[in-house]
């Protein structure tokens, strides 16, 4: 389903980047990184009213000829970026939203680990497995 899943920290540094095998890894890294521009714009333009329960799912950030970039941000300013093939028209918005929710709960599990230092790169077998299941679509 997805070709790239990335978790990006509060200060916009990557915590975890998964790239589907056989894909142009560097290019997808660039895409995930550039998606932050749109995320940042969306976050700053929305959070004006306090107590406003903003949707964490930010929707399609932008699309190139080959890929679509979707974004999601947690309340602690952790960003998730999922990139799919632009040609993949079977994926609906709702499914993307579900993927982000699952990713969010996977991330929550990582943070709950007392041996994880917040802000450091995620190296967790459980998380790897979770992401693998997520992108496989089951």
């Amino acid at each position, binding site marked *: 389903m997805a070709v790239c899943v990335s978790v990006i920290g509060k200060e916009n540094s990557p915590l975890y980047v998964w790239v589907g095998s056989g894909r142009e890894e560097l290019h997808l890294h660039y895409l995930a990184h550039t998606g*932050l521009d749109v995320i940042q714009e969306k976050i700053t333009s929305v959070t004006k009213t306090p107590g406003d329960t903003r949707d964490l799912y930010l929707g399609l950030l932008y699309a190139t000829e080959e890929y679509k970039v979707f974004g999601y941000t947690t309340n602690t300013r952790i960003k998730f970026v999922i990139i799919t093939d632009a040609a993949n028209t079977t994926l609906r918005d709702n499914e993307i939203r579900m993927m982000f929710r699952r990713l969010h709960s996977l991330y929550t599990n990582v943070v709950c680990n007392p041996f994880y230092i917040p802000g450091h790169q995620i190296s967790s077998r459980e998380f790897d497995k979770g992401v693998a299941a997520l992108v496989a679509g089951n």
Partner: protein
Amino acid sequence: MALEFDPYGLPSEVTTPPCALVGMMGLDINTKATHKAVWEAFALNRRPDRIPLHFSLLTPDFQLPNMKQKRQSYEWYIPKGILKTNWISKYLKHIPALVVMFYDLDWNDNNWMEKKNDLAAKVQTLKSVVGCRNSRVALVLIQSGISVPGEDTGAAEKAATLCTACDVPAKHLFVLPHSDAHLIGYTVRLENALSEIAWSFYQGEAKGVQGHRDFLNKTNHTLLFVRHQFKLGFFNELRNDAQTAIKHYAQCYRQLLELRSTDTNLHEIRIVASIVNYKICRLDFTLNLPRDAIAQFRRHIDLFRQRTGPKELIFEHYAWLSKQYQIFGDVFEEAVRVGLPAVQTQHPGFYYQQAAQYAVLRRKTALQVCKDVSGPVSDLLEGWDKLEFYGQRPWRPGKHSLEPPEQHREAEGIKEVQYHELREVNHSNTIIPLFSSAISQFKKYRCPRIKRHLMVQMAEEYHQAQDSTKALTLLSHVMWDYRSEKWWKLLSSASTLALQCAYNTASLMEYCSVALEMMGKKLDVTQQHKLTVHANLTKILKGEPPEPESNNTTTTTANRGVDEVREAWMSLLGSHMSPITVDMTTLVPCLEVRASFTQHRVHVDQRVNVVVKIRNSFVSTLYLSSVSVTTNIHSYNDKLIETDSDKLILPPNQTTDIHLSFLPLVEDVGKKVKVTEVRAQLGGSDSVVGVVLQWAGVGNEGVTAHTADTPAFLEFSVLCQDAYDTTVPIPETEILPRQPQLSIECEYDSTSLVWEWLPITVNITNTEESPIADISLNLGLDSSSPSSLEHTTQVCTSSGLQSDKLGSQVCGFRCGDLRMAEKSSVTFYVKSLTASERTLHLKVEYSVSLSLGVSSVQCPCVSEKTLHIQARIPFQVSVETQSLKFEKVGRVSGGEKFVVVPKIKCTSHVPITLTHSSLALVNEAQVVGSDVKSQVSGTELSEGEVGVDCFCVAFTHSATSNSPLSLGQYFLYWKRSGSECVAVRMSVGLPSVVVEHWGVCVECEAAPQGTVRTPLPLTYIITNHSTTTAELALTMQVSDAFMFAGHKEVRVRVLSGCKERVCYTLYPLLAGNVRLPRLSLSMDSQSPGHPTSLDPLLARILPSHVYIMPQAKESDTMVSTVTNQLSTLLVS
């Protein structure tokens, strides 16, 4: 071949905004000023709000392009292509929709007939020229005067005759009054009228085209369907009818898609599609329909992206796609410029970006498919820019068949195109401006990261274009951001490129900094690559040029300059250059340092230690030849250096500690030493080239601060495996004065008495290991004390005790020198004037000579102590005035004696001794008696005890009467019991007394006691102090206790200054303290009949009682003894 010709772009006539062409005739702008003004009013400064018209100045002998033979039937006509290249410019530039004949002619012109005929002839000539093209003709009479309607009735008639003569419709005749003020207004109105005529021409033309359609059939004339729709669109565009134009262009685009396309005609179809698409998008934007424009563009791209054309010319496909995106970007950007709002996710930048990417792909594919091309074989490309139809192949012009007519010629033609692509096209010149446009757009729409990505791509392009310097500049901007956001993967790719660029430009510093970064563990580079980089760096340090960066992306063109680059390195390293400095603060290098003091504060006689931790995150051992630390105090810097290369071997993945130290200087006491910089020289002792690594601060500034692995929350530090990441360096240390080795003891009573001089004895013992000199003592109120205490505290030494002016500080009391273990003591005195707590500060300064190593220095030391004193009031004094009968009085009469009784109540915690007391009386009062003695001198009082003093005082008669009169002051001298201090004088104000003036004074002479049934003499002496004679009435009242002999009632006259005695003999009847018979006096005053009673005075001063003893029995001798003793007691 023209330099500007681009076979994939849009021809210039297509991009020119079409507007109706109006020809102007009869204007002589060179000689006639009026004509010039008219021409300029029409043709110059055409702002967008004016009607889109294009004016061209025609000479009288102009000609129109020849008409083709009108075709009678299309039955046998086979079109040779889709759009003719000359058609658009024909209507844009050569065929005017309307020719306007200007003529100077006033209605009342003298030569009216002549001129009318002249004009008619000219119009006839003109009509013969334009007639075949259906161009309209209009007449404009330039008139000097303004004709007022109704004034000149001949005008309408003349106009009618003129129209008939010239054979033009009446609506095509205009008058342009020429007056400077309103010329623009007239022209604008005229313009409106003219544009209507011009547009009607285009409408007529369009009708003509539509008329042809009936003759067309679908088998042979599919191309004409496209062409005709295009023409209709274009005519409507000329008519300024964008809506209809879009409709026809869209129809045209649909017809175009219905054409069968093969590899042979694909290029023509896509070029025409590009033109039509451009027209539609542009019109959509002008009609403010950006969504339609974008949708049209997307459909256009989606339809043609799959039609790649022949494999040998695949690059043409990408060139064409790139062009499409670029054109759309330009159109979009133009729309934004005139006010269309664009957003972050939809703006021209995206199209420029895509255009750039396709341009890159074009080059890539071109290099692949054209690699076998040898050289120019023929001149088949001749005339590529002058074809009859858009998008056709120059080697088979005018052929629009689906199969190539000649296989061989076709193959040659393709070869030609390939050769052209490879040799004649400078791809970088196309790609770099596209990136540059995209970057500026993304910058505008707040996409810094996309901008950075584009900058990397642009740098790659510069690198390909052999302009590594520019590439390096671009990369250096980008890498900073990738570092601070910790996108190591992206940084790695940028670094790899930067290293190649640095190599190509032989820039040593950049090469070293990139290399050091790549050797670090953060960057995602293969182990093998890291080792190669290290080997190259080692080579540089030894003065040898590094190996070229072998990379599979390096193209053949990039390799061309390998030898030159090697030359550049050789000459650079061969020259004896000064060491280069690499700023490590901006990198995430393989060597990290943290310089830290070991303590926050250091005493001046101790060594200051600095530990430099160096972590090597490279995979093998690194060597340094020196490490130095720079501080803000320069004199220490030459000591903070380590050059022993044995200590500077840095094993991989380990932290090496380097210990440095220095002795602080005495003059830097109180200063802070701060690490400002850490420097290290790379390479072992055999290095030839000096590469100095420089870290600002203690080594954790700049990028390092962002990129360190230190957890954001300190609580997580325990999870960090490397202590290097969690230890916080101490960046500065304060140099404190030397720790004093002096024992100071203070002896004093912490509870002082107010007003007393409290002695404080300071005992100083030299416990230093050498003699001390220049001892100076300061004692004073602590600086934090409130200012009220400063005025109520006095401090002095024994010499200052007698001084009047004493402050709350004693400064710089010299105490000389002390040898080792010698003692000295100084006494200070402190006087507290209020009962409160005081904090005193004792500061002992001295200097001691120290031998530090070889030299010996005088080192100043300071020892300080704080003393607390609680002052309390030692006693309270209350003073009363009493009559001689020891009754409290507030009023006395002049000359009357009374006593002043100060009572001293001790509240001191220690016994005090009153040494002396005295009265200081005002002039009107004086002490009675000559030998006045203090009753309390020498008395010692403890807490709670009371001492009473007593003085007998009388006012003189001259004292002012009937007003309170202050008596003066009471002085008491006192000190602590057993203290050797001088006694302190304390003064208390005496109470005020009201002096009465009676003029008469009565004294009583009586024995102190009497005995029952024994006569007792009693005499009253009446004295007159006044200047007048006093007339007194005296009454003696009867008493039960006495019988008496003497006047019971008598009038007495006392002369001024005389005395009168009145004598009685009393015979006591009762024993005890018996009331005397009451004497009552009243004095005649000035007002007769109202005598003044003297009774209040008498009650105060005369005795009221007397002791009467019982008669003694012979046997009872004791009683008489007691009686005697009692009498003495009463007298005293």
